[in-house]
């Protein structure tokens, strides 16, 4: 099957003042595909993710269905945002503290589907809340009244409200227990199958990345150092950083901090 990529990133570069967070990076993402993105803390993963959605200034080209996101008008960008969604890394900090959960989830619907009736809107919100494992009586609560993992799930629910075509997930399961991690990951996969969503999935959890990804990119110090199909990457990592990363994955019952696994 031949299809042109949904997202084509070429020579994307992110600079903060004199500091280069992301050196020219190029990759493609196909419809319905999941691209894992792993790498060192501070290697530029979040910056790259934000640059794709034009949330930080960047140079290069980000083609979305052959339209350059980095060059389109603001009006056009607002329209595109309906299809492009992101789950942010810091769940609490990314939710407006003065909005109740019900309003946080209603907001994207108000903006992009204003014709929806009140009842239909409530129905969609309740359904999503249920799918991320939260109770309906939490709708009137404020973000600070939730646990870390609950905030993360609110972020996930909000990002999925509009069934986006591209979902950028920046550490979407990091503060969840393994069971709810599984629940959210399964939910993302369901959504992907149902709506053919493409995903860029950033995580430090190598087991989850291995589970969900078709291909994996590895970043180190602002560079893309390795790119391979998921099976290849985990079976035969090439770059020394990728090897160190896989060797450092902790295992239950093993003693902590095996120095040999460190760089």
């Amino acid at each position, binding site marked *: 099957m031949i299809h042109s990529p949904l997202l084509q990133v070429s020579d994307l570069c992110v600079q903060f003042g004199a500091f280069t967070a992301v050196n020219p990076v190029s990759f493609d993402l196909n419809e319905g595909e999941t691209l894992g993105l792993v790498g060192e803390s501070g290697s530029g993963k979040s910056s790259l993710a934000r640059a794709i959605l034009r949330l930080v200034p960047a140079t290069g080209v980000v083609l979305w269905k052959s339209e350059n996101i980095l060059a389109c008008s603001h009006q056009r960008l607002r329209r595109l945002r309906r299809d492009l969604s992101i789950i942010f890394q810091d769940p609490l900090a990314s939710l407006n503290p003065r909005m109740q959960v019900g309003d946080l989830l209603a907001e994207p619907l108000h903006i992009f589907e204003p014709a929806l009736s009140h009842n239909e809107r409530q129905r969609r919100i309740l359904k999503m809340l249920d799918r991320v494992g939260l109770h309906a009586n939490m709708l009137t609560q404020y973000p600070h009244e939730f646990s870390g993992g609950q905030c993360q799930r609110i972020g996930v629910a909000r990002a999925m409200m509009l069934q986006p075509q591209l979902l950028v997930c920046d550490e979407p399961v990091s503060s969840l227990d393994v069971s709810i*991690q599984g629940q959210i990951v399964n939910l993302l996969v369901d959504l992907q199958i149902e709506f053919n969503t493409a995903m860029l999935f950033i995580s430090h959890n190598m087991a989850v990345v291995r589970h969900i990804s078709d291909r994996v990119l590895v970043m180190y110090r602002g560079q893309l150092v390795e790119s391979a199909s998921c099976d290849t990457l985990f079976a035969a990592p090439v770059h020394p950083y990728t090897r160190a990363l896989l060797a450092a994955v902790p295992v239950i019952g093993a003693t902590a901090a095996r120095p040999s696994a460190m760089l």
Partner: protein
Amino acid sequence: MQPVLNIKQLDVKFKQSTGVVHAVRQVTLSLGLGECLGVVGESGSGKTQAFMAVMGILEKNALVQGSIQFEGREILGASPTTLNRIRGAKLTMVFQDPMSSLTPHLTIGTQMAEVLVVHQKESWGNAERAALQMLDQVRVPEAARRLKCYPHELSGGMRQRVMIGMSLLCKPSVLIADEPTTALDVTVQAQIIKLLQEMRAELGLSLVLISHDLAIVSGLADTIAVMYAGRIVEQSSGGNIFQHAKHPYTVALLKCTSDLASPRLDRLPTLQGFPPDLTQELPGCDFAARCSRASEICRRVRPELSAATFEYRSLDAQSAHPVACHHPYES
């Protein structure tokens, strides 16, 4: 020997328009000098709030009951002056969400130095030097440049390392680390764990480690408490609990854990059902509705934590393994 931290029958409730959320229920825990206590459990089970209560920094709508002794002194309900002397210096906490616990409009250097200026009456010059040294120690690359950065200019992992460094500046006797490694890549995770180990050895630091990462907890903790719906449901020595889990929740949690050695599955395993609504008080076991071993008694009578309380007994802690279950797995 006296435990440094002794929590007895701690209850935390939050008043809300829709009811009272009973987030922490009869939690009894103790932490011995130099010990590491691991706390694991379901998202929303009260891990963070229990230790927010210890720090005396719960939201205004919270109601706390029970007893919290720090170095032999009751600190629950202590005066703000007493608390301020202890908190942030001898008793510190690294928060789960590093972005929202740093002040956005102050540089990292200023925020770190301020801790020493306030608590140890250091000069700004000395404090800034100590801050730089600490950033190096927690492996923040290019530490000198980062000191001049604002929180949003750091990556998630760096912010977390800054928070850990900040909490260690005053050489505390107890550090409560809430998910200290979640935003870090596994190589840096290993470094942070090693750092915490070194601090335990060097400073005699006692550590509370709250984490969803069972592998990390199992590698570091001397004793581990498992929480479900606000209660401790099982507790044992670090080496023991995951090999010989007794509570069906712990067993189910372990079944959901996958590592790189496990086969790639179509779907990740999850627990069926949902955690109970914390505004309700169930007569029986909170886990019964999701438990494959539940019988009629489980829905009617709440199982007590078997060895009533798990007091600090450094040596025989190895053998003590209380569990709150009518039908525990045999170990």
